[in-house]
């Protein structure tokens, strides 16, 4: 029944003000029938001056505020052309015709007059039945064009394909309830109408294309030559993919990532991974959580990881250093400003906790709370985001075990923490016990850090985290 010829013309109603009407046609011929369809707007059409219609309330002038189309764009009837404003009322002007915009009579902020031409539209030479449509059901992204036909003085909106289906089944469109926009009659409405009439859904015209059945498509019983034998034959529509590639400039957060990562590429990374048994820490945190809550702070595992890292950095200060561009000097940073990778709506940001070397676990937890709430509100300041010397990324909150984190210049090391999993392990006595295991993946700058240093740091950090009581010995 449906000759599938896809022509998509993006709707003029603009959601992003940057979008323009792209007149994109692709003709997919599925039918055996040779039907000639016009594909392009004929250049020798009639130019009509579309005048600004009455706004109401006796208003004679409006200000043009936004154009949704530009000269050369194709429009369909009912597409939005522009937005005008008059005395606190914002009015969307829609096109009365199908055609191509040839001239805009006003610029933004000009005063437009009711009754005077707003745009010149070149109307297709043979309008009406000629325009092709993309038949329904596609998700809201797709764009439909409909022709407007008068049937016995009663205006009904329906695509030619739908009208043909109605005609083949001797249905008066005026009797069908349309469920589409503006009471448009859709194919479903015809089928529903038929179902109600005959108690069965009749198939489309036998001349239709036989399309290979798709596994999940609707099944429609065949026209009974033999009424007793109702074998469902899937009548599937060829999959119409109306998506288009979308190119947009890299800006904002992405731009920032591009810069950082391009610089990070210059650093020769090496990785070192290990498995951490958090069983004791999990228990400790359970005990301390309510104490912290009483003081108004949410306690996660991160404050412990961060403090342990700082204790480790005291022993291996080269991991808290920075190499200058020419690799001539290494600067050992006095402050442990430990960055915490945060995932926000806009992307990755890394605020840091300043001077962890003089902070208690509680201080760190409170500071993390502050950074997290600012981060989710998009209100982190420059000082929160600069000055970091070492970074931890808790990717485990989202998932994953091992990772290959990328060092954030000008730092020289980074650690990625996987998720905590409950797995069986053997204890000292050879017994199986329930362990809470997390994986850590370190990356370091191999120009100034060697594997042994990283390994020793990791072991020290691991010992603090696996046995939190040992942190007490070294706390300053």
């Amino acid at each position: 029944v449906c000759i599938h010829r896809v022509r998509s013309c993006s709707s003029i109603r603009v959601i992003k003000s940057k979008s323009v009407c792209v007149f994109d046609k692709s003709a997919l011929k599925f039918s055996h029938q040779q039907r000639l369809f016009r594909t392009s707007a004929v250049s020798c059409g009639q130019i009509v001056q579309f005048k600004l219609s009455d706004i109401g309330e006796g208003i004679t002038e409006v200000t043009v505020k936004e154009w949704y189309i530009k000269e050369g764009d194709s429009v369909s009837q009912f597409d939005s052309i522009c937005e005008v404003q008059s005395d606190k009322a914002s009015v969307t002007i829609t096109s009365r015709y199908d055609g191509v915009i040839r001239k805009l009579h006003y610029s933004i902020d000009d005063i437009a007059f009711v009754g005077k031409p707003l745009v010149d539209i070149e109307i297709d030479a043979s309008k009406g039945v000629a325009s092709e449509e993309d038949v329904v059901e596609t998700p809201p992204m797709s764009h439909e064009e409909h022709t407007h036909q008068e049937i016995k003085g009663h205006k009904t909106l329906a695509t030619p394909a739908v009208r043909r289906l109605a005609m083949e089944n001797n249905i008066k469109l005026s009797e069908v309830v349309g469920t589409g926009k503006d009471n448009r009659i859709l194919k479903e409405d015809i089928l529903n109408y038929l179902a109600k009439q005959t108690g069965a859904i009749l198939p489309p015209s036998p001349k239709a294309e036989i399309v290979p059945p798709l596994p999940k498509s609707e099944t429609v019983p065949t026209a009974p030559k033999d009424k007793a034998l109702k074998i469902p034959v899937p009548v599937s529509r060829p999959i119409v993919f109306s998506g288009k590639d979308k190119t947009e400039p890299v800006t904002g957060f992405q731009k920032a990532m591009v810069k950082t990562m391009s610089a990070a590429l210059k650093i020769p990374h090496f990785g070192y991974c290990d498995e951490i048994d958090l069983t004791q820490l999990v228990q400790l945190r359970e005990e301390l959580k309510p104490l912290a809550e009483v003081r108004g702070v949410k306690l996660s595992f991160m404050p412990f990881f961060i403090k342990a890292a700082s204790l480790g950095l005291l022993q291996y200060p080269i991991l808290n250093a920075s190499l200058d561009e020419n690799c001539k000097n290494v600067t050992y940073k006095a402050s442990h400003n430990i960055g915490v990778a945060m995932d926000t709506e806009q992307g990755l940001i890394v605020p840091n906790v300043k001077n962890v070397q003089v902070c208690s676990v509680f201080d760190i937890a409170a500071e993390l709370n502050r950074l997290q709430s600012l981060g989710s509100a998009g209100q982190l300041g420059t000082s929160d985001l600069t000055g970091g010397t070492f970074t931890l990324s808790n990717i485990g909150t989202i998932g994953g075990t091992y990772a290959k984190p990328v060092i954030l210049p000008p730092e020289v090391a980074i650690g990625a923490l996987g998720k905590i999993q409950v797995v069986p392990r053997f204890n000292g006595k050879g017994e199986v016990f329930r362990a809470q295991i997390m994986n850590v993946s370190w990356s370091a700058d191999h120009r100034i850090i060697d594997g042994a240093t990283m390994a020793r740091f990791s072991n020290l950090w691991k010992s603090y985290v696996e046995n939190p009581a040992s942190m007490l010995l070294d706390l300053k």
Partner: protein
Amino acid sequence: MVLQPSLKNCLRLSCVLRTPKAGFRSTARGALIIQSVSNDVYQNLAVEDWIHDHMDLEKRQVLFLWRNSPAVVIGRHQNPWQECDLRLLRQKNIKLARRRSGGGTVYHDLGNINLTFFTTRKKYERMENLKLVVKALKALRPQLDIHVTDRYDILLDRHYKISGTAAKLGRTSAYHHCTLLCNADKFVLSSVLKSPYKGLKSNATPSVPASVKNLFDEDPSLTSEMLLDAIAKEYATQHQIDHHITLINPADETLLPGINNKTKELQTWEWVYGKTPKFSVSTCLNMAYKDSVLDVKVNMDVKHGRIEVCNIDLPEQWLPPALYSELVKSLTGSKFCPNETTTLVTTLLRVCPQDDELHSRWNLLCENMIMLM
């Protein structure tokens, strides 16, 4: 129509909630009064969009009653930087929304009620609607001195604005909505609607500031419920329908298919900030650095909420030229948004020479720039 079957369900639900015996037939004649159960400004604006796009108002007009938790609502063609104190908004967690109708900026909180009159385009008549509101208020409290001006404001005691109006007209339908100050926080209202901006040039619709007063200041015995009820009653009388308010949930996708997409769209940066008409910023930063104060002239053109052109007049060599051009290059095309700019400039700092002096200059300049946004 898509709405019909689900609206019947909704009406049945409302029947259970309010008047158990009322059949929907009696309320579905000529007009419909609905009230939102949500106080989320985006959800409520989305309901307006939905009704405007999907309901057939030929047979039945609609009155929509809604209230919002604290929010600033700017008109379709306005400039938020020009209209309100964005920093204060962010601090106080007050939402910012852009509506689709024209007009000026308003502050909403639960002490303000919003009324939207939906009609076909042909029956669009603002004065009639406002007269209805005044009639309802006077019926409730005859001694109130209220009247409608020719600017479609409602004034109390000839002087104080208690209601502002805006409208949206589409191809076949139209709506006129207005506010009504019952018991809003006037202090927050005046501080939040004051823009600290200087040096902003724009063709965006400016708001006309007005002295405001709450109806409650005049008569403390009034409540929002009483006002809503009085207006609904008057509307019902004028449209010859039952005085019956149907509650709707703006998150209900079955009742209002597609509503959640509309809500989301209203919250996007592209809509709220990106729809600002082109404007330019021309100002002077006074930066206190070490023992002196630097006057740095800044000129920026912002289109679609993004920086199109950026000029910062720094003393020569105050920043290494390469770094300066990196800054300008990064800012160009980027959103005129403090969050995005903060991320960009702090990232740039990672890849430039690690010099404390340089870093402190950079931070100073960038913080001042971010203050502009």
